[in-house]
């Protein structure tokens, strides 16, 4: 029958007899087991069991994981190789917690949700293409940006968007490919600046702009000259770095 040894759980195998042993007969002292009584079914191998994460306390600021004194839980290999060996973190034992108590309490900048970290990473580096009509008059509003986000697979409410101070009115082909930024707040706590780029669009094939390959990679400067400082400080998308490297190699 299934039995579990107490204590160490290192490389245990829990078995079960395939054919049960017969019962004792009357006046039987002992009997020999038959050959088929030694067939077993494997129920569980403890080596294959999913191992729990390790709790750590960070001793330095690390991007996208947390700041100094944060308590995080990671997979075992990741924790050993990237955090414990280089000395970026220590085990979250009761003694260590007491030791680093002063740091742990002083930092209170936890994210609003555990998914916010990945979202911030995406939003910081993204460049939203805002598709607007080429023929009809328009004024850029919040729901325009909501729809453009939705087509990319990011779901935003109108409350969380703050628009630029000046109005943006079109259609104006001089503004094609020009940049501005908006602010998105996640759960009313984290605020991110998102780079946006205007693009004119139609469904009438005669009115379409001449086709440019990979138009989304070309920026024509800032829409408002006072925003240039902020836009230059924002991190650029990954493909733009790659594009610059490619040009350098070609030279």
């Amino acid at each position, binding site marked *: 029958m299934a039995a579990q040894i107490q204590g160490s759980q290192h490389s245990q195998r829990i078995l079960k007899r395939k054919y049960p042993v017969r019962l004792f007969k009357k006046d039987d002292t002992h009997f020999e087991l038959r050959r088929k009584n030694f067939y077993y079914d494997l129920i569980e191998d403890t080596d294959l069991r999913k191992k729990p994460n390790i709790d750590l306390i960070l001793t330095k600021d690390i991007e996208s994981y947390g700041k100094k004194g944060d308590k995080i839980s990671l997979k075992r290999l990741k924790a050993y190789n990237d955090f414990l060996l280089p000395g970026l973190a220590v085990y979250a034992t009761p003694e260590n917690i007491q030791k680093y108590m002063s740091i742990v309490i002083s930092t209170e900048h936890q994210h609003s949700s555990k*998914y916010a970290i*990945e*979202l911030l990473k995406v939003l910081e580096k993204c460049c939203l293409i805002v598709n607007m009509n080429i023929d009809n008059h*328009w004024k850029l509003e919040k729901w325009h940006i909501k729809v453009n986000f939705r087509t990319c697979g*990011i*779901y935003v409410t109108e409350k969380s968007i703050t628009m630029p101070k000046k109005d943006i009115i079109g259609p104006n082909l001089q503004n094609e490919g020009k940049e501005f930024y908006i602010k998105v707040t996640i*759960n009313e706590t984290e605020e991110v600046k998102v780079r946006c780029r205007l693009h004119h*669009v139609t469904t009438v094939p005669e009115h379409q702009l001449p086709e440019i390959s990979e138009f989304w990679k070309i920026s024509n400067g800032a829409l408002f000259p006072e925003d240039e400082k902020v836009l230059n400080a924002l991190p650029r998308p990954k493909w733009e770095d790659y594009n610059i490297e490619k040009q350098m190699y070609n030279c």
Partner: protein
Amino acid sequence: MASATRIIHNSINFIHRYNLSTCILSGLSQVRHYAARKSTREKARKKKSLTIMKKLTLADKIQKSKKNKVVQVIKPDALRYFDESKPAPTDDVYLGRIFKWNIYPFSEAILNHREFFHPTMYDYKDPYVQLLIEFNMKGVKKTKPVEPFKKLLNIKHKFDHGEERRILAICPPEEEAALEAAGALHAGGTNIVKDIMSGSISLDNFDIVIANVKLMPEILTIRGLLKKKIPTLKAETLGGNTLKLLNHQLNSVTCSVKTYKDFPEYGYSTVSIGTLDMDINHLEENMKIIIDNLMLSKPKRSGSFITRIRVICPPSNEKFKINHNLYIKEEKINTEIEDEVALPLE
């Protein structure tokens, strides 16, 4: 010794090669040239004839060329986009790929599509609103799934579906004018049957033939010419009220349920329920009727038939999932054996 044996070996080889055995060494070696058995020669002849007769058709050639290439297996949407194991969104801003799909109310799905086609954005007039329906095609038996089928579905609120349907109506002479006014390409009585027999009217110019029951004996005479276009009760092309039949054939929507080649238990279809500028309640009523009509072809087994519905609007890529269980009526499973209820003793 070795040299002597080699000489003998060579000489025997030479004799066999030039077939000199009979003349020189008739007594030493036995070589017999009997005819092969009857059956073996016939088999060989048949094989030869078969290889010559089999000429490769175009389809065979294509298959042969495909054999060497890697054929991509198209997986059904139900297996590719399986979101039920993912967590539900909790934040007000979130990435779609991490979480479950949002389930929209029907009105919100339509309003979202209207935003995309707003004059300040893409400015596209009257795209069709369609339902992307996924089916569970398991049959009553495990080995026999439901075969793909095609249906004409009635709708309550009409719209221009954009298909051209040329209809020939065979009816009593009183109804001719009314039918042609309603939209039939050609209508007539017994004289049409004669024209088809003589060949002055060719059936290639018509897609559908509808007929009144009264004229059925005359139609049966041209059964061989009509072939698949023969009016039947099942296809709703034969009946007492010809005007009703015509309206059904003209205004109803086609729905063809297809299955995947490698996965016959998964089906899908797209049905249009109206244009985007129609009233939302009208669109919803059309959808209800279509779902009710499709549920009639469900096999008699437990479990769901329709598994998922998404609202789409073809030029845009957005798909909005809706709760289809709201529109499916609860079915009564036939329980023949009823449990006996114990009555209290008096």
